[in-house]
Structure formats: structure tokens, C-alpha cells
């Protein structure tokens, strides 16, 4: 796999250079596209939007190049590029606006601090993740996002910081269009970076080494080149690109880490179109995304339907999902997948221990409403709802080896469908069944990418799926509507009124217990065995006749259905549900859930229960109820998940060092050293008298 394109020159039989037919076709295609673009631009007077689009695309391209470079040299998909870029912008703001440094100095320091120093940390993380399973790599990357988002919002607040332009903003007139100097600089930076990287890979020893470290770090080491050093350079270059892009975006967007996280999906989309490999295609895709977004924003500006009017903001997510669905599978190679430390299966406890633990757990759960303050009962009920969502995530992640970053979207589908069904007069249980069925269908849709994708690519695809649902479907009548609200009534079951907090807690507990039993039953069924087999070796399963696509459909459907139940239970606490990004059904919660579950282990029921308590209940008690903790809870979740993901690699690394040190002073080595005669000092011939 090549990081840069091959030259469009091949040698013919006589050794003469000749343009390859394929390269000519590619060049012709690009020229035709550019010509069509120019014609359309002139015909519809789109010049200003195209110029702005190219400038925006250039910034996305810089970030996407950084992402591709680091992913291909380390196998770690840096989900945190948005947070990293935001960090650079925040530091830039602190240095320029708060400390009063001149902007060039502030910019350089910001890039050095966040780009270079950050790259060192990221390279270490990537090193410790070498050989880790895809799930753990995703957990680590997600943990970084959660950690950085929490630190940045904790330090700088959640409000968007307005940021004045720092690049020259005077205009240049060209073909009747005014182009800002800052836009020219952004374009030059992106094209220069792509061309520079191209030459770097072709002409420099380090660039060639980066090709090699992609394919085989061991072979590179055997050629006396340290792969760690090569990767460090790759991370430094990639991180600096991301940092620079963060600075460039600040004047247009303001500085807000949550906005940056979303905007940088455009970089994910561009990198996906380039199959996380080709630099020029990545550049072109980023430009295309930028132009399309700007042109569509103009064309849709008159729309009264807000979903349609905001459709242009969804282009990056659409591109991301479409690229992952249609880029040839052979091009989406998972790097570093060969030397995988497979996930250890969850410890199986003896039956008496399980029975005793279950009895104690159920007893405590039944006692909760009577021993905690009445005001806290609802928090426990929410914890139960989240525990059910965690159970569904655990089923996907730990049992079947599939990764989902859209679990709260399934919960939202459940809650909204339940709300609509009860509004239409369905009884509570009937509405719950409908909610589950609709979520199962959504789960099947989300499973489609898993037919061709796994590991980090599947994580990215489900992340995109969740974002699309949040932005395109949540605000429609199908889910929460323009009012962003559906009513989630509490049940009146079998003549018993369960609308009080305490009664609803018991209903939630019973429903959660049934979900847990269903998962235990599923794991013991044939499907459960097939899921475990698929997690270990999908190829072996297929080679024995099992259709793993069907298995994936079943598990995604089951997980979505269970998550929907969780969503209904969560919504029932406040008796309402909405789709605001910061609410319980926001896309970011899907990301945090994965980090929290990773901290709590891989037990199918116990871990989700602990995760539910950790996520929702712990925060009501001191010292976790303090404002400081709630501000920085993401730091704890992020650090915890990072520790879980990195621990095996760190242990191996430190054990290796200890072994090396021990080898140096082992009894055998010591004896050998003492047995040797002392070195003979040989004087130079000239020293003889």
C-alpha cells in the first residue's frame, strides 16, 4: 500500500519512460471534472461559494492529511483530531489574546505545544497499542476524545470563544470574484502540504522509511532503522498539520471544542474517500466537501424547512458513510491487525458465586428505594436505563466483536417511537414492543456496514450513522420533531399505577432484569456460540457454513432492540425525551458509553450494571457530586478507559525493559563476564620506545 500516488510514468519493454494508460485516464478524468466545475461555476455565478469552499476544504485537507499519515504509520485512527485542533486554537487564543503575544509567535508556540508535544504523547499511546485488538484501539482513541473534550470545556467553558482573524483579510480580484489573501494562504498550505508530502515520500530516506514502517516495522528495524523514530516523525508531521488547521478554522468558527469535533468529520470523510491512503484523493475530496457545503448553503438558504435548510451541514457525514460503504473493500486495509493481542474472554465465576452475587445484587437493588433519599430514586432509575444500554453495547462489543458508536441513537429511536405509540393510544407494553421492533430495523440498517467493515472502519461508519440520525432524523416528525420533545408516560400495568418515582423504579428494574436474562439466554443459545465464534474468527465460522452477515444482522438487531428498551426507561424518568446533542440521546454519549464500559470490564451483565452506576449514580454522592467533578468527569472516564486500553501494552513494554535489565545482571551473564580475562591494553605501535 502506498501513501503517495505512483508516478504516471512506466517503463516499457525497452526501458523507455511512457505514460501509463491508467494514469492518463485518471488525469483526464480529473481535468474533465475541473472543467465541468468551472463551467457550472461560471453558469450559475457560484464563484464566491466555490472560493470559500476551496478555502474551507483546504483546512479540512490539512487535518485529513494528518489523519491519513498517522493512521497509516501506526494503525491508530485518531478520532481526537477535532479535539486536538481545538486545543491548538484555545492555546493560540490564550497566548495571543490573553498573554498578548504577537500572533506569529503565539501560532508557533501553539503548534509546538499541541502539535509537537502532543505528537510525542500520541506516539507513545500508539506504541503501547501495538498489537492491541481493534476494539481496544478504538477505545483508546475515543478515550482521548472524551478526555480532551472534558479538559477543554472545563478550562475554557462551553461557550464559543469569538476569535478575530489573524491572517491578512484584504481581497484580490480574479475573474470577477474577490478572493481573500487568507483564503489563498489556506489553499497554498493545503496544496503545498500534499505536494510536499508527495516529494517527501518519494525523495527522502525518512519518507521511504515511513512507507516501510506501514508495511513491516520489524523488517525496517532489521535494516537498522528504528521504526519508533520513524513513527515519531510521522506523528509530529501529522499532529502539526492538525494543529495548523485548528488555528486556521478559529476565525471563521470561533473556538468551541464541540463544534470542532463535528466540523472535523469533514476530514474523516475526505480521508475515507481517499481510502485512508491516497493523499491527492484526500485533498480533492476535502476540497469537494468544502465546495459542496458552501454551494448548497447558498441554494438551500431560502428553505423554510430547517432540516432541509441545514442539509448542507450533513455533507461530511453523508460523504463519510457513503465512502465507507462504497470504497472498494480491498483498499480499506486494517493496519497492524496481524499481531493482535486478542481480547481475553471474561472470567467465568463458579455457579455458587454467580448465584450468591445475583442474590445479593437483586436484594440491594430491591432495597434501593427504601434506603436512599427519595430525591435520588430517579437517578438510580436512569442508571438502570443506562445499564440496559450498556448491556446492549456489551453484547455487541464483548460477545460478537462488533463496535458501535451509535448506541444512544438506537435508544433515541426506542424512546421516540414509544412516545409516538403511546400518543396514538397504544398501551405501555405494546408501545414498548413497537419501539423495540422499530429499533431492530434500525439496527439492521446499522449492520449493513459491518458486512464489509470491521474494527476501526466499522466504528467510524457507526459514528457517522449516529451523527446522520441525530442531525437528519431526530428533528423530523419521525422522531422528536421540530419541538424536540416527545412525551414518555410511565406505565399503569395490570391495574397497578406505576407513575410514582418508586413504582417506576421497580418497573425499570424488572424490565432491566428481563433484558439481562434475555442476553444471558442469548449467549447460551446457538446464536450466542456463533457470536463468540465470530468474535474470534469470522473466517473459520464461514468456512464451516455459517452466514456471518446474518449473524451480524441478528446481533445488531438484538443490541438495537435492547438499547431501545434502555431509551424508553431513561425517557420515562423525566417523562419526556428530546434529541439535543448535549442530552442523554446526544451522539457524544454514544462515544462516552464505550469508554465507560471499557473501564468496567467485559462481563456480560455485571460490567454494564457497574457502568450504569458509574455513569449516572455515582455523581449524586460526595465527592463526585461536586461541581468540579461534574465539570471534569470526562477526564476520569477518559483516563480510565485509556488506562484499560494501554495497560497490556505498557505491561509488556515495561516487562521487556525489566527483562533486558535482568539479563544484564543475570548469574550466567555475571559468571561469563568474570570468567573472561581482563581486556588487554594494546599500545599503538608508535608508543613503543
Amino acid at each position, binding site marked *: 500500500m502506498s501513501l503517495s500516488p505512483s508516478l504516471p510514468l512506466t517503463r516499457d519493454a525497452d526501458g523507455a519512460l511512457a505514460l501509463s494508460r491508467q494514469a492518463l485516464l485518471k488525469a483526464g478524468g480529473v481535468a474533465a471534472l475541473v472543467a465541468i466545475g468551472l463551467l457550472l461555476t461560471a453558469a450559475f455565478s457560484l464563484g464566491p461559494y466555490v472560493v470559500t469552499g476551496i478555502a474551507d476544504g483546504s483546512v479540512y485537507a490539512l487535518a485529513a492529511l494528518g489523519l491519513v499519515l498517522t493512521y497509516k504509520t501506526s494503525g491508530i485512527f485518531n478520532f481526537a483530531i477535532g479535539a486536538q485542533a481545538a486545543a491548538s486554537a484555545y492555546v493560540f487564543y490564550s497566548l495571543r489574546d490573553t498573554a498578548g503575544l504577537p500572533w506569529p509567535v503565539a501560532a508557533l508556540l501553539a503548534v509546538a505545544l499541541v502539535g509537537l508535544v502532543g505528537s510525542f504523547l500520541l506516539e507513545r499511546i500508539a506504541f503501547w497499542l501495538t498489537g492491541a485488538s481493534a476494539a481496544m484501539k478504538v477505545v483508546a482513541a475515543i478515550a482521548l476524545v472524551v478526555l480532551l473534550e472534558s479538559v477543554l470545556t472545563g478550562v475554557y467553558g462551553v461557550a464559543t470563544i469569538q476569535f478575530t482573524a489573524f491572517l491578512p483579510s484584504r481581497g484580490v480580484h480574479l475573474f470577477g470574484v474577490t478572493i481573500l489573501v487568507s483564503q489563498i494562504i489556506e489553499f497554498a498550505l493545503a496544496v503545498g502540504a500534499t505536494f510536499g508530502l508527495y516529494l517527501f515520500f518519494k525523495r527522502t530516506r525518512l519518507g521511504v522509511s515511513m512507507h516501510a514502517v506501514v508495511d513491516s516495522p520489524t523488517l525496517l528495524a532489521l535494516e537498522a532503522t528504528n521504526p519508533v523514530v520513524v513513527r515519531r516523525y510521522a506523528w509530529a508531521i501529522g499532529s502539526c498539520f492538525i494543529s495548523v488547521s485548528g488555528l486556521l478554522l478559529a476565525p471563521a468558527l470561533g473556538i468551541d471544542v464541540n463544534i470542532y469535533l463535528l466540523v472535523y468529520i469533514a476530514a474523516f470523510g475526505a480521508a475515507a474517500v481517499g481510502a485512508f491512503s491516497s493523499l491527492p484523493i484526500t485533498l480533492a475530496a476535502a476540497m469537494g466537501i468544502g465546495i459542496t457545503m458552501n454551494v448548497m448553503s447558498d441554494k438551500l438558504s431560502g428553505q423554510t424547512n430547517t432540516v432541509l435548510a441545514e442539509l448542507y451541514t450533513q455533507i461530511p457525514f453523508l460523504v463519510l458513510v457513503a465512502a465507507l460503504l462504497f470504497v472498494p473493500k480491498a483498499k480499506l486495509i486494517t493496519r497492524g491487525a496481524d499481531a493482535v493481542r486478542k481480547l481475553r474472554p471474561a472470567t467465568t465465576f463458579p455457579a455458587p458465586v454467580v448465584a450468591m452475587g445475583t442474590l445479593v445484587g437483586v436484594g440491594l437493588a430491591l432495597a434501593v428505594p427504601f434506603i436512599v433519599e427519595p430525591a435520588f430514586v430517579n437517578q438510580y432509575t436512569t442508571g438502570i436505563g443506562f445499564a440496559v444500554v450498556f448491556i446492549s453495547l456489551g453484547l455487541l462489543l464483548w460477545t460478537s466483536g462488533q463496535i458501535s458508536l451509535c448506541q444512544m441513537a438506537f435508544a433515541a429511536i426506542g424512546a421516540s417511537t414509544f412516545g409516538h405509540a403511546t400518543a396514538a393510544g397504544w398501551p405501555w407494553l405494546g408501545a414498548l414492543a413497537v419501539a423495540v421492533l422499530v429499533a431492530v430495523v434500525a439496527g439492521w440498517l446499522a449492520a449493513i456496514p459491518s458486512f464489509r467493515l470491521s474494527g476501526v472502519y466499522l466504528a467510524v461508519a457507526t459514528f457517522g450513522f449516529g451523527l446522520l440520525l441525530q442531525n437528519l432524523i431526530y428533528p423530523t416528525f419521525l422522531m422528536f420533531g421540530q419541538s424536540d420533545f416527545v412525551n414518555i408516560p410511565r406505565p399503569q400495568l395490570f391495574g397497578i399505577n406505576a407513575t410514582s418515582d418508586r413504582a417506576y423504579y421497580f418497573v425499570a428494574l424488572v424490565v432491566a432484569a428481563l433484558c439481562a436474562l434475555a442476553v444471558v439466554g442469548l449467549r447460551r443459545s*446457538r446464536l450466542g456460540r456463533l457470536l463468540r465464534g465470530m*468474535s*474470534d474468527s469470522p473466517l473459520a465460522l*464461514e*468456512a464451516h457454513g*455459517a*452466514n456471518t452477515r*446474518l*449473524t451480524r444482522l441478528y446481533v445488531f438487531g438484538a443490541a438495537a432492540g435492547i438499547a431501545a428498551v434502555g431509551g424508553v426507561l431513561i425517557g420515562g424518568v423525566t417523562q419526556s425525551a428530546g434529541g439535543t446533542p448535549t442530552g442523554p440521546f446526544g451522539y457524544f454519549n454514544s462515544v462516552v458509553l464505550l469508554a465507560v464500559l471499557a473501564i468496567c470490564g467485559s462481563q456480560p451483565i455485571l460490567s454494564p450494571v457497574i457502568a450504569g452506576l458509574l455513569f449516572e449514580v455515582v455523581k449524586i454522592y460526595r465527592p463526585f457530586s461536586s461541581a468540579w467533578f461534574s465539570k471534569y468527569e470526562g477526564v476520569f472516564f477518559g483516563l480510565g478507559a485509556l488506562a484499560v486500553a494501554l495497560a497490556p501494552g505498557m505491561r509488556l513494554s515495561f516487562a521487556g525493559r525489566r527483562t533486558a535489565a535482568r539479563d544484564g545482571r543475570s548469574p550466567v551473564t555475571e559468571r561469563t563476564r568474570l570468567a573472561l580475562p581482563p581486556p588487554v591494553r594494546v599500545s599503538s605501535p608508535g608508543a613503543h620506545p
Partner: protein
Amino acid sequence: MIEVQPDLEVDGLTVQFGGLVAVNGVTLNAGAGSVTGLIGPNGAGKTTIFNACTGVVPCHAGSVRLGPHDLGHLSTAGRASHGLGRTFQRMELFDSMNVTENVALGPEAFLAARRPWSQLACARNQRRDIRARTKEALDRCGIAPMGRQRVGDLSTGQRRLVELARAMATPFHFLLLDEPSSGLDVVETERFGQIISRFVAETGIGILLVEHDMALVSGVCSYIYVLDFGNLIFQGPCAEVLSSETVRAAYLGSDAISEGEASQVASRA
């Protein structure tokens, strides 16, 4: 009474990776009730033929038939459910499971392919069948005592036996075994050969065996195909292959192939 099992017929199989022709128009016929060898130096295309036969890599040309069934248009799972089983050179085991669970999941996955809903639950008679097949395969391969051990903790040789047992427990009609003796010592290899021979004699199914260990090949194979650089360079009974200059040249790197041998290859192909 032994059930009549189908032959595997590969006709004009060609596999390309971009511009590289990994397998070039290979035709071979592996009969039921016997072990057929497929040998050749590293990189000759043996595993690629297995991958093409089982649908793991796409064929550029040619056909693969198992008895009356043309498998060419089927997926890997589809070919397996038609009865074409295999083991892998780089072992594909369910590492989180123990030996018994690994072996049992072979027939279970096979039975799960019958209907779309067969994946959801297992009928009682199927459970009995799986248990009986698993026990028989574990006993046949001599790994019953280690049934509760996790396969991730076993040695390479033991893992090979688990993979073989899993394939034997599954009701396949034909087996492709890819370097099953690599990682085994001399004694284990000899025992391995006995297990294969007995299995073929008792069940009547055919085996196509890719193997580097010539002692094993000559011990169990009745007919051998020899590959080099994706081309079939020789075929014949074991003794004939072992004495062939063409085969020696392919293995030892000599390019001195007699004209007589070359014409013999051409006439057989």
C-alpha cells in the same frame, strides 16, 4: 455402510492479484475415498488454490465442482454448506473457547446454515448429533483429555489437531487440509498421517492435502499434483512424482528439465 462421497473437480482455475497471476489455469481432480497431494515450493500457489476453491479469494477464470454442484458462484459459507470443508495454514481457531467448544462449533455452524432462523436456536436432535460428532472427532484425534483446555493456551501441534478435529466433526463431503503437519514433530506427524488415512477409509470422503512434509505426503497420498509459480508442472502417482526430475528442479532450483519431462507434463495437462 460408507456413504458415496463426491469428487472435487477444479478446471482451468486462474487467480490473479492485479497483474500477478498466482494460479494459472490449474486443472485437478481429487477423488473421494482417497488423499490427493498438492505440493510445490513456497509461493507456488497451493494455498491460493484452496482459497479460490473455498471462495476466500475470487477466481479470474475456471470452475470448481463438488460432485454435481458447481460452487463457482457461491460464497465461502455457501461452499461449506455444500460440503467443502477446509483447514487453514495460519490456524483459524476460536481462541476464547476450549477444545470441546471449538470442535462442537464446526458442526453447529454447519447446521446453522440450513435456514435463516437456524442460527437462533438448536433443536434437541441436532444437539445430540453435535455432541456425538464432537466426541467422535475428539477421540479420533486423541485430544479428548484436553477438552476443557482453552485453545489459546495450547501448543501449535495441539492446535493443529483441534482444527483437524473440528473439520472432521463437521459433516463435510470433502476436505482441504492446508499444511496440517507444520509445527508437529516426527512422531506427531506420523500419528497425524494415521488419523487422516483412517478417517478417509472409514468415511469415504476425499481429502486434498497441501503439505511440505514429503514423508507424510508419500505415506498418505495416492496421487500428487505439483505446482510451481502457479502452474501445474507435474502430476502422477506418488512414486512417479518423487522420482521426477521436474519436481526436483522445482524444489531444488535447478532449471535442467529434460525435454522428455516437459513433453510428459504437456501431454498430462
